[in-house]
């Protein structure tokens, strides 16, 4: 899978939950895993959120936006309950793609405050717009910019260490 993968646009009118699920499950799992830094928790949260969506299918006009927001909120709540545990996502060493010693960059991303990490993941992996990110994490677009710049500053210091 290439980087910069965007959340799929399934169109305004989704005919069935089955079609929607097939398209969104991979990125929903990845998003929840990134935000929790715990693939097992990410899988559980993604399934719960999608189960809730199925229950309300048809009542949401923009299901993928709803899914992003629900996942983000659920992951945030998970963090509040599990502050002492944080597992690193597995990193496959790909020397020809990763120029820097990414281990401590990985740690630095994982150590960011939740909202900064969410902005980083949604912008630099899922390539969402500022407005879409603001909607997902529940803040103003200007705040997204501010969160991103702070995160970049923190990560820059880590890389230059």
């Amino acid at each position, binding site marked *: 899978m290439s*980087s910069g993968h965007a959340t799929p646009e399934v169109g305004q009118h989704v005919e069935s939950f089955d079609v929607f*699920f097939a398209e969104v499950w991979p990125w929903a799992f990845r998003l929840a895993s*990134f935000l929790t830094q715990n693939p097992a928790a990410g899988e559980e949260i993604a399934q719960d959120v999608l189960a809730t969506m*199925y229950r309300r299918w048809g009542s949401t006009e923009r299901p993928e936006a709803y899914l992003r927001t629900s996942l983000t909120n659920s992951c945030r709540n998970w963090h509040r309950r599990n502050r002492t545990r944080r597992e690193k996502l597995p990193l496959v060493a790909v020397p020809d793609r990763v120029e820097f010693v990414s281990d401590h960059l990985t740690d630095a991303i994982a150590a960011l*405050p939740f*909202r900064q990490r969410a902005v980083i993941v949604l912008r*630099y992996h899922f390539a969402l717009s500022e407005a879409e990110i603001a909607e997902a994490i529940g803040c103003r677009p200007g*705040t997204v910019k501010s969160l991103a710049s702070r995160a970049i500053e923190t990560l*820059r210091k880590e890389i230059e260490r």
Partner: protein
Amino acid sequence: MSTEAVETAMRQVLAAQADALTVPAVDVESIKQRSANGFAGGPARFALAAAAVLAIVATGVALNARGDENSVSTDGTTSTTSQNASTTAERPAPASTTAPDVVESEPFELGAPARLLPPADRWVVVGHETYTDPPSTRSTSDTYAYDRDGALFILTTSLPGGPDDQPGAPEPDVFANRVSAYWTVDGRRFGLTGFDVTVESFMEAARSLVETEDRGWMIDDAELTLAERGEGSPGGVRTQTVFAPVGEDGDVDLTRSITQMSSRRSPGSMYAELGEASSIGITRVIQVAGGPGFYIDGDGMDYGLRYADDHVTSWQTDQGFPDLEAFLEALAVVEAERWDEAVSTAEQTQRDALVATADDLDVRVTADLPRLLLPAPWELVRVNDATQWSPEDQALHIAQLESGGGVPASRTLWVQSFLALDNRDAVVPDIIITVQERLSGNAYVRVDGRTPFDVIDGFVGEVSNAEGPTVAFIERDSIFIEFVSGSLSPDDLIAFAETLDLRSEDGRDGFDYDGKRFTPRADSQTPYFERPSIGSWSASWARDGSEVHVSVAAAPPGAAQALFDGELAWALRSDGDLIVVPGEPFVQHNSGGSIVQWARPDLDAVFIAFGTGDAPLDAARNLEPVTEAAWVAATAPYLQPFELGPGN
């Protein structure tokens, strides 16, 4: 390193992480099944609860047939004409059955409380009271329970129900994992609640509700089990037991507590309580003392329920966010001897815990407080003077205050206020900024070694929300920064919070905004949450039928203004009717009475007077300073001794 390079590195790292993740193969049918059966835990959860509890209630009353045959439709129409018929209240003798999924508890004596205790090395009893409730003949609802493919439904019906609803389906209310609806038809009030069901499934159930002549109320052609006939309550003994956790060091933590209440009641009343309690949060079934119980996750204000042996026992978290779920799962039925010992020593256990806390307190005694008396016709009624208590009593007083308040969800680190240069004499600052740290898990997030302006500066540009005309705030993880203004408009306040640019790093030069210069009012940067010295007195006076209460507290050196401004921030946020008394240092606001507050930074003291009508303001204007010796002599006849307990 350029920003572009950092961004590229991030993209690569995130992509590598994503590639390394194996997306689990999940079938859409399993998601649909999960939706129908509830969340993590599988389909058996409510099935277990519903079947087990329904088996229990089967030992009780069996419904007699009613005379009517009404088809109650939730679209407000009736398909058949009802015929008045008498309602039989005959109650056959309860049959004895054993619920297959419930572990039998030992039998209790009639009226005896349920004896449930957690492990003594983890929780202790710190309070226990017994009450006797009189019988109540007030008519209550008939309550029914129904297991619909593993989902629990509760139906209540009552007469009279008030005027009929307008035609149209009742509006289902969805909250957490509960769907409920209420409606009135033919003068009868109905309430239906379903757990872990889709709205569609719930409405199907509601529409299929029908009362038959021979089998009573039915849903889906299945007979509902009567849990309680609404004929009032027999009354009886009710117990209330308070538990506090024991820390790893063996100390009892009085700042966290759980209250357990138990009384002899019917399953129907438990269902009614479950229906109300489920409005707190997600409701789940868990094992409690060997049988099914309910846990409602109220995000810190949690609730538990259990029915066994004719007793309904409930639990709620009182303060300090204890882990109620773990507590419930650790409960066990105990022998009478162990129960009696635990509850009879509760008061002593609490006192021992307070003494242990007090021993660790570093109490600073301050006797150098301003001493004030009101002249005639005001007459002294009672006086409390903590400066005259022994150091041991002062420590106990603080220990009790701190345990009674629980572990607050947040505490204020700093208060800093600013005045515009052209408004330097204002009593209420133009801007008040408070920095709070939130409880995270079981500990506060500390922001060590930093000034308030270090913290505030790190949040500039991140306004999260605005409330009313005077509050903007920023929340990041466990730090919460609040901006309150006595003079800026809402838009200006938000703009200010997003763009705050201090003139100097330590903030002592204030800032510029919108062409105005703002300077700090309170010069101290003392951390706000430092425990104040035990220096305070309070007195009550009466005159012509009105009474006023005056309290004076010592502030840490240099912190009186910050303490007062913190109170103003709260009043601005909460009361909305903050009144500055012209020409005076007083601020008046009304909270169920009249409160007047003021600060004397030159004396390191803060004042509050409260009462009704004009009494507080009159007192504030007429208090006369006297020497400490004169004050002690005048107040001696009215001085209250220190007592460990409410009111001190």
